[in-house]
């Protein structure tokens, strides 16, 4: 079987042909969503390789460009080629690659897009059928379009960071980011949605089009109910101060942490029963969820004392049996050992020539008729350059080679 055949598949997007010119998480995650459903995705890397190859996590913490867990995860199911888009020959090769392709994804910074010929007007002039999606921190137009950004600054600029961290009496603590590169993941998944939309649009109009995605706006668009407090009530939503409703909080059990969530009165009543109806639970101070919010400092002490003796798993199951929506604070190890996830076959094993066989996070959704599949491991740097360029009639010796040694 040819390599080209192995990257196709029986997924919902088999037959779609995608080129990804990105660096980091956002475009790569959008590309992954397409690839995992069967699209043929060719990832174009610079000679030094994608930034995530240098980021890790790495086995034993040792930097190795073929062993970055983040890179391996984001780029399975893709073919990888190396081009130095600063060189005219390599730009010519990209031009050939884009012939007959459906979608070009990029999240390169503005300067790089300009230098590399990845601006929409130029792409559109030469490839009128191609849909191009440009993911940019603040979008490609507007006063902040050229501003520098990282995942942290975008999580802040999108308004989520301000909502998290601290709590009553801890206003010295800064707003707190979520783990990982969540702004980029949100930019990626929303860009994938918009790109699919643009492909449907192309079916109607017969022409390619440009999709422009602002990561700041993707983050701002998931602010739950907090944004509307300003235009609707003139209130600034803050992470400080007491939550109006309790309990919605973390507790330490004897073997880990658990999160208790009692929004409805019946959930609290059943939790009190589960605790054996201790006397303190009947106090007027805790009579309804608003009172429990107002007197949370006191209630939390009672609850924590009781929780400390419990086991997370037993309490989770006993609570869920009573329809109380509590949940374990899952560690990564808990997740990899979860019977529920194992039964659903969430984790997927994949062998990679350098990184070995690992268990990867798997399907985020199950398609009844067209399977999600992990088919091939992430490409070694430049692994498919010769194969892809040969098929295009471009001499692979004429384009840039990977820089340096693998390790």
């Amino acid at each position: 079987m040819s390599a080209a055949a192995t990257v196709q598949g029986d997924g919902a997007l088999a037959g779609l042909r995608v080129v990804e010119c990105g660096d980091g998480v956002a475009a790569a995650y959008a590309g992954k969503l397409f690839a995992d459903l069967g699209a043929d995705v060719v990832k174009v890397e610079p000679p030094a390789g994608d930034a995530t190859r240098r980021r890790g996590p790495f086995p034993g913490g040792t930097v190795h460009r073929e062993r970055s867990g983040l890179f391996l995860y984001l780029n399975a199911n893709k073919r990888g080629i190396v081009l130095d888009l600063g060189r005219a020959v390599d730009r010519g090769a990209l031009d050939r690659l884009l012939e007959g392709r459906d979608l070009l994804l990029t999240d390169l910074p503005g300067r790089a897009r300009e230098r590399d010929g990845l601006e929409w007007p130029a792409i559109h002039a030469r490839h009128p059928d191609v849909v191009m999606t440009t993911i940019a921190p603040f979008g490609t137009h507007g006063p902040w379009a050229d501003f520098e950004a990282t995942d942290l600054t975008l999580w802040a600029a999108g308004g989520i960071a301000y909502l998290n961290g601290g709590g009553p009496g801890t206003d010295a603590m800064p707003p707190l980011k979520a783990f990982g590169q969540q702004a980029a993941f949100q930019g990626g998944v929303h860009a994938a949605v918009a790109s699919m939309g643009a492909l449907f649009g192309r079916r109607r109009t017969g022409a390619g089009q440009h999709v422009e995605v602002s990561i700041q706006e993707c983050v701002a668009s998931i602010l739950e109910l907090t944004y509307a407090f300003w235009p609707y009530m003139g209130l600034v939503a803050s992470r400080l101060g007491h939550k109006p409703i309790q309990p919605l909080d973390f507790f330490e059990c004897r073997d880990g942490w658990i999160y208790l969530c009692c929004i409805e009165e019946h959930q609290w009543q059943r939790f009190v029963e589960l605790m054996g109806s201790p006397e303190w639970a009947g106090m007027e101070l805790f009579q309804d969820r608003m009172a429990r919010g107002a007197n949370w400092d006191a209630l939390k002490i009672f609850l924590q004392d009781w929780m400390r003796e419990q086991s997370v798993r037993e309490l989770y199951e006993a609570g869920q049996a009573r329809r109380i929506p509590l949940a374990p604070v899952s560690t990564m190890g808990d997740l990899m050992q979860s019977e529920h996830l194992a039964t659903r076959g969430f984790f997927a094993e994949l062998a990679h020539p350098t990184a070995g066989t690992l268990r990867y996070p798997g399907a985020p959704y199950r398609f009844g008729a067209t399977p999600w599949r992990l088919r091939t491991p992430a490409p070694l740097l430049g692994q498919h350059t010769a194969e892809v360029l040969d098929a295009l009639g471009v001499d692979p010796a004429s384009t840039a080679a990977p820089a340096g040694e693998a390790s």
Partner: protein
Amino acid sequence: MTGPLAGIRIADFTWVWAGPHATLQLAHLGAEVIRVEAVERPCVTRLLPPWPDGQPGLNRSGYFNQFNQGKRSIALDLKTPEGLDLAHRLVACSDVVTENFAAGVMDRLGLGYEALRALKPDVVMVALSGYGATGPEHEFVSYGPAQVPLSGMSSLTGYRDWPPMHVGISYGDPNGGAHGAFAVLAALWHRERTGEGQYVDLSQWETGMAVLAEGLMDQAMNGSAPARDGNRDPHMAPHGIFRAAGDDRWIAIAVRSDGEWHRLAALMGLAAPERERYATLAARKADEDAVEALVTGWTATRTPEDLMALLQDAGLAAAPAMTNRDLHDDAHLGARGFFVELEHPEVGRRRHLGIPWTMSGTPCTVARPAPCFGEATDYVLGELLGIDAATRADLRARGIVA
């Protein structure tokens, strides 16, 4: 409608936030999204604040009105045979069915995939539940706030040596929702090519893990996970959110290289010995508390806006930790046309966050404000299902529709 999905109809049985965030994306793309609400059980977010003047009302919630822009709403009593029949007839003339009830609820209502497929053989149905449709915990109760710890996010999020923490929003909902929108589009793409519909089982828990790869891959490779470390980053320092001048004002700053450190140090006016002592990432990471104290000493007397301008002028990544008010008043977002302000019959003209993308050939716009409860019942029954006015009035009088 001008969006790329014009002509696609979604019978949308979702509620709360995860499902409505999914169908918001589809409405943004121009699909006709018809929220099917229960006569006795309107969407939960209609009952939550904020409301203008603090006065509750089914059509007054900013939460509902933000995430249901561009959609329609009908109200049916699905527990009556006639109400169920109307829902079936709507599905029969729709392309997609979406729902995010707990596992089994749609089956019990008579709206399970097998029942709907019998009515509409090529229907695309996407279910967004907390735990997924199978597995030993699939009937567990799932609430948005509890998805964040369940997914693993909380165990990795928090200040160093503090307990696990939340992320500030019920992140599993919009994350699951955005993935759900992609699943709908992919399944529709397959249907367009082959004529085949299908059922998609999406678990918010699993979509939550899809964005935690850095933690899960570390566990897979090393048998351990990264320790909670606040806003810090192993490859960048300083990397944090620093106090600025004003009441609870903050600036996020990320220094990506040693060269950027020198530019920051110059802006801060650091003396040469301090600048040089921290010239390498390793030196800054080894003494990060001290480095952060130096940065805070400089930021604490300046506003976040001034700091952002100074830092960006020097080519450094920085942005204020923006509040909802900051976003509402933001000139950049305004200049981009991100905001949507449409006349709503009960709350008037208010600013909502709009579509996070632009599209050149098939432009996306928010065509209408979020629907009042049942505003499209007559439209759906009359124009889509061909039910005459007298019958509609009778259904309404008997409480089968509202």
